[in-house]
Structure formats: structure tokens, C-alpha cells
């Protein structure tokens, strides 16, 4: 396993953007140091030779679990919508996502 470079402030800004989070300059500084310390701890597993070991995503390896295709009641629409921050015409309301037609 190659030596990993510590995470940089620019990478923290990039990751925050991907995760839809906005950070102040102070937060970038603090999170860069904290994430660097956590990722630095992971150097212990980076050094392991585990290339021949298969990855585990689920402890018991259940795959393609299907239930019977039976129609059951869905959640009550008006109750679900009552919990949304904004409702427009019986739907979730969001800011406009498309511009004017060209």
C-alpha cells in the first residue's frame, strides 16, 4: 500500500461541496486538522496486506432478499405531506429547478 498524503484544506473544501455543506475558513482549518488526525490513524490498516482477502459489505452476506409480491396499504399521503417543509398542489414543493425555455 502506498503512503497516503494527508488531506489538504482544498480537499476538505471539495468534499464539503460534494456533501452540500458550507464551511467558514475557520471550519476548514479545524476540520482539515481533525480529519487529518482520523485518516492518519487509518495508516495502520493502509499498511496491511489484505489484497487477497475479499471485502465485506454485510456481515451475513444475505443477497437478493425478496418478499412476496402482495399489495399492502401505503403511507397516508396527506400525513406524509404534512411533514414536508413545503407542499404545492399535493406534492413536495422545491425551488424552481429549470430555467426558461431557450
Amino acid at each position, binding site marked *: 500500500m502506498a503512503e497516503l498524503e494527508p*488531506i489538504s484544506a482544498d480537499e476538505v473544501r471539495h468534499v464539503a461541496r460534494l456533501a452540500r455543506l458550507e464551511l467558514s475558513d475557520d471550519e476548514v482549518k479545524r476540520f482539515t486538522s481533525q480529519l487529518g488526525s*482520523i485518516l492518519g490513524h487509518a495508516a495502520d490498516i493502509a499498511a496491511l496486506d489484505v489484497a487477497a482477502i475479499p471485502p465485506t459489505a*454485510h456481515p451475513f452476506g444475505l443477497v437478493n432478499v425478496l418478499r412476496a409480491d402482495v399489495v399492502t396499504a401505503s403511507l397516508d399521503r396527506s400525513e406524509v405531506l404534512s411533514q414536508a417543509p413545503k407542499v404545492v398542489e399535493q406534492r413536495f414543493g422545491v425551488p424552481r429547478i429549470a430555467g426558461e425555455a431557450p
Partner: protein
Amino acid sequence: MSVAELAVAIRSGERSAREVTEATLATIATDDPSLHAFVDVQIDQALERADSIDAAVARGEDPGVLAGVPLALKDNLCQHGELTSCASKILQGWRPPYDATVVSKLREAGVVVVGKTNMDEFAMGSSTENSAYGPTRNPRDPSRVPGGSSGGSAAAVAASMVPLSLGSDTGGSIRQPAALCGVVGVKPTYGLVSRYGLVAFASSLDQIGPFATTVADAALLLEVISGHDPRDSTSLPEEAPSLVAHLDDGVAGLRVGLCTDLLDGCDDEVVHAVRRAAEVFAGQGAEIVEIAIPELRFGLSAYYLLAPAEASSNLARYDGVRYGVRVEAGDVEAMNVATRTAGFGDEVKRRIMLGTYALSAGYFDAYYGQAQRTRTMIIEAFDRAYGQVDLLLGATTPTTAFELGAKIDDPMAMYLSDVCTIPSNLAGHPAMSVPFARGAEGLPIGVQLLGPGRSEERLFTAATVLEAGASS
């Protein structure tokens, strides 16, 4: 009085659920303001529920094995129409449109839910200090943390406000606070308890489990909430195990591995308690084998890549559209960013960014892939150990409860308090913490019992022996 005896008294009409619920609510009103174990107390709903149980008893119906027993739920368990916020600002005011499967099962068993307990936001933390509602205090010493993330559930039971509570355990979030507060806490085998209606943190690791003051009470509660659920695709296919019937089976002939890697770096008083627990087992006819599983020490690093990776994906749903809080801003992306930036606390942001980074192009193999392979390595190491011994014994936590504020500015120091509990989550195995001794300052010390998948029956039998030999 055990919860089984309490339920019998209520089912026979000797005591009323109303009277028990009123007493519980009065205790919470008196004791909780200084501890802050609860984020919401459901006074009217609990009394109404108690009355319906008393009415069922009066009609000659059987209201269930936990009839009238008060219970508190961690704030990440969905209850139809009741506030469920995961102690996060982003879900403030949210009332789920459905019940978690465990909540339905509790109702069928006659439980009276009295409220929601405080937690680290989205179950991310080890001290309950990462709560949007402020911290919970340890009932054994209010200057100290109760542990976390299920700190409110542990504290509520430790302070005798309720006899039972439920928490969730992703890396130790039931066992660690149980140890720090001096109560019994169980993380069941992955899939034994349905996760339907548990707000997701790290789906391949999360598991719901009980807190109680005794092993027998915890066994009864776990029997009630276990069993296959078609609404959770990771639910095991079998029915609930029989635990209460085997509590007194004893440990004669059982091979117990004293795991030296679950003592490394622990305080002397903790190591001493675990070694004395081994003597209690030996005195009851168990064979004690010292066993090294050096692979377990890599669990911490693997966990703190895998759990944030899963969290970064699971928490993408908090976008200000379908539930919870929205902060309005120009376009959709600006609204998403404004909502998440205002709604999440620092620890949640840290883990989302860590997970996003571990999953990003160029780092996926080095971090996430490497952690997944390390997870397999740990599972294989456990499998070899369980070829030699029936159960493992070790510390639950390296130290007793620490002071509020002691680790909040140093995430890595905080994460180290989970070092002994994480391996069982990675393997999907059951493990429990049993209060066993007191440290120099009178603070509780828990010892941890670990077993292979589906070994709950054996774990509870062994825990009963430890409980009888405890000096706490």
C-alpha cells in the same frame, strides 16, 4: 421487583398500569431536569395507554408479557405521530407517519412508552454531548458523561426513572453507555431485531437493543423485540430466541476466552475487574483460556472509515424537501446547502465529509476498500477464536465515565472509547456489557461478553453468572 413480576402484578389487577405510569412520570418530573435523559416526555399518551391496559385487564383480556411496564425509546426510533428528531436540528418537529417494528412489538407486549431519550446527533458520538438539545449527565456522577450515543437511554434506566429502555448500537452505542452508567446493555446479532423505523446511520452495523438493570429484564425485553420482519431485508429468517428459559443453565464446561486484546490500553481497575470476572466463571466450572486476537486492534480504523462512508450516503436524504427543516435560499442546491449547513452539528458534518472523502474517486480503494477487507480479516479472526472457545470476555470501555467536555474537542480521543466494542459490530456478532465492579472513585465498571452470531442464549446464561458474582 423485576419487570416480569411488575407485568404479572398488572395483569392480575394487583397493581394498575395507571398508578405505575403516574409514579414513573412523577420520578421523571423530579429527577430529569438535572440529568436531561429525556428530550420528550409523552405524559398524556402514556396515561391514556396505561388506562387502555387497565381496561383490557378489567375485561379479562391479556395485555401482554410486559403489560404496563414503562419504557423509554432512543430518539432515533420512529413512533407514529410522536416527535422523533435524532437529537438533530434538521429533524426538529418531525412526527413519523409510521411506527418502527420494535415500537409495534412493544405495543403488542403491553409496554407503556413514556418518552424519547437524548442521544448524540444521529447516534454519532460516545458521550451524548453531540446533541442539539444539550448533554445528558451521568446519574452516578453528574459531572461526568453517561457515554453515548444512547446516553439518555442508559441514564434513564441507571437513575431508576424507567426499568427498561431501547437504544441502538453501531460501534458500541448501547454497551459503552451501559458500562459507564452501571446498567446492562445488549447489542444483539445483526438482523435479530428489525431495523425498520430505526433512523439509519450505518446500515451494515446498526442494531437496536435493550437497556435494563438486570440480565433477566434485558432478556425478556430482547425476546419481545426480536424476530423476522419482512420490512427489513437484512432481518434474519428465524423467530425470536428463547432467552429467559435458559438464564440459569450455568457455565459448567463452557470455554471462555479471556481476550487480551480487549484489555490492551485499558485502565488497571478495568483490567482487574475483567480478570476477576474470569475468576467468577472459573469458580462456576467454566474453563478460562487466555486468547490473543491481534486483528481486533484494526477494528477502530476500519470502523471510522466504513461507518462514515455509510452515513454520508444515508444522510444525503436530509435535503430540506420531504421532512424536517428547510432553510430557504435561491435555487435547489443553495437550499440544500443552507439547510444542511444550519441543520447538522459538527460531528455529523465531520463524519459526512470523512465518508464522502473515503468513497471519492482516487481514495475509494485506499480507504473504503481497504477497510472492507480489514472487516473480513476481523471476522475470520473471530471465527478462528470461536473454534477454540464458546464466548469471549473483555473490557467494554478502556476507562470509567469521563468528565463532560474532556474529549469533545478531540474526535480521535473520543473515538478511542469505542475500541473494545467496535469489533462485534463489524462481525455482526452479539455482545453485552454487564455491570460488574466499581472503580476507585465509585464509578461503575462494566465487563463485556462477546459471542458468535446467534449466540444470545449462551451470552445471557453467562451474563447471569457474572451478575451473581458482581461487586457493583
